[in-house]
């Protein structure tokens, strides 16, 4: 894992803030989920933005990645880090 003090998880982004994916902690996921995440467009260097947080606790998140909008839960969002 390439955790850097400068990286933030996408979970920490404000709604509407655009950032580039810096690292994905694929070791924290089962291989199938890691692959699906990639198939949905999550990859290093791709722009992401949090569009919505669900009511009642802000979980799950609706994340725009490229032209795709993907819903995922915060525990997974924490494994995706963005550049500051």
């Amino acid at each position, binding site marked *: 894992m390439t955790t850097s003090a400068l990286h933030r998880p996408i979970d920490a982004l404000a709604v509407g803030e655009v950032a580039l994916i810096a690292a994905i902690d694929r070791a924290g996921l089962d291989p199938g989920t890691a692959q699906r995440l990639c*198939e*949905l*467009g999550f990859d290093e260097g791709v722009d992401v933005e949090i569009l919505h947080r*669900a009511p*009642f606790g802000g979980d*799950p998140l609706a994340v725009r990645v*490229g*032209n795709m909008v993907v*819903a995922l*839960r915060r525990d997974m969002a924490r494994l995706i880090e963005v550049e500051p």
Partner: protein
Amino acid sequence: MNAPVSITRQPVVALVGNPNAGKTSLFNALTGSRQKVGNYPGVTVERKAGRLALPDGRSAELIDLPGTYSLSPRSPDEAVTRDAIFGRIVGERPLDAIVAVVDATNLRNHLRFVLELKALGLPLVVALNMIDLATRDGIGIDSARLGALLDLPVVETVAVRRLGLEALGAALAARIGDTPPALPQERPSDVRALQKQARTLSASVQTSTGSARAWSQRIDAVVLHPLAGPLLLAAVLFFMFQAVFSWAEAPMGWIEAGVAALQAKLSTALPEGWLLSLLNDGVLAGVGAVVVFLPQILILFLFIITLEQTGYMTRAAFLMDRLMARVGLNGRAFIPLLSSFACAVPGIMATRTIDSPRDRLTTILIAPLMTCSARLPVYAVVIGAFIPARDVGPFGLQGLVLFALYLAGILGALVAAFALRRTVTKGAAPPFLMEMPKYQWPALRDVGLGLYGRATAFLQRAGTIILASTVVLWAMASWPQPPVGGTKPPIEYSLAGKIGAALEPIFAPIGFNKEIVIALVPGMAAREVAVSALGTVYALNDVSEDNAGSLIERLRSAWPLPTALAFLAWFVFAPQCISTLAITRRETASWRWPIFMFSYLFAAAYVAAGITYHLAVAAGL
């Protein structure tokens, strides 16, 4: 079907693509009403096939394969797509060509799958679908350049407006040879490398990036709003259930009148006797009592299909995820569960999109708790008989009671899921990942074809399983005939009466009378049969020869209110439905789960009906 000696072989073409690429719209546009819906052997994934006329005079069999992101399946329906491509499905012919359906507004993600398909070496044509939406959003795509870079024919299509279909047919005809191509070999592919390649490719063919999803984001600002979103969802569901009741009123009246006219005609045309009784009291009373609910079922499906097509369903799943997570499920389970409001069978089949086996099993087990349309006839009759048709504020009391029954089913399902996830389906919560497609106008043709499919399936059930069970029930309720000079109602002497009497002690503590118990037995075939069974039982149970009174009036005089309420409570859980148990057997590949499902639903139904009955009696109702 071709004769075995025929020289012309009908080639097989499959539509393959990401979910939400507009595959089904393209399939509907290409095949129109010439489609056949069936099942793949062994699995219950829907197999949709149709005839595709090629411009060179040949015709091909076009198959709509389930949408998937890649050839590495995460769920059973995605596995069907992979197996069909690699020719591993028994009874399926190998593919001659593939149409890769691509959403032009989401090029870079969908192109990755095209690259994966291209590596197979099968004849491949790319349908650059929804090109109109790309243009609207200001996304310019050089499709000729895309074709040159991919070294594949690329055809721009707008499935919902039937644009580009001839060009697609011509491109296909040029790629389909006289002999089938060799079966492709499965090779591992590097997703990240392909994804990177797709991004580069899409960047080099897009002449302008535009503002894709601007509209969807504006709509989502309301639909997913923390406060407005849940309120809107509740309003949509509430409106849907009110509509099911109020819009269907008139057509239901016409069907009832039609059945009554037919019965009157038969009464004058045929002599009094067993044949007339079979036709009037058995077939027409039984099947008529079920067919009358066709309008309600169609309205319910109209809402579900439309909501699915607009893209709202995944928003509902997003909003519901938190609640589902509390009981150990995820938002994805919301869509199968919502389909189960129409019928648990397609709902249970829709669980194939859930990737975690435990989640899927839990969803299957609670799906029958969603109030399916087969319960509507039962609710409708009992509510019509016992709940006064007055207004409470702006709403009808009958509609409110119906809403409460739906709510009871949902709460029951949440409690059941909570309990199941901590016992029989214990295990870690799986990750939740769900694409939220852009909003789209529902296409009339796609909604129409969807509704047509549902209506024929329902009428088929009415014409087969329900017809058969009502005839059997009629026979059971008619024989043996009462002895000469018998004083009790004829049904008491019949086989059905005897079974009812034998089972009555089990159900007496929850307020059920013998007629209800008799009706519950054939109701095993399908829940709505309970209504036709009650119709048959009460029509035959009548010694006064007065067959004019409707079932509603008969029930009103025969049941005390606590019994009626207990009956409603029973049907919230009602375990009886052979089709649901059969599909559960097939989907879980064991008898263990259908037996478990039946037992736990029976126990829940019994307890709920008992509590309702005794509370109502205690309250002096």
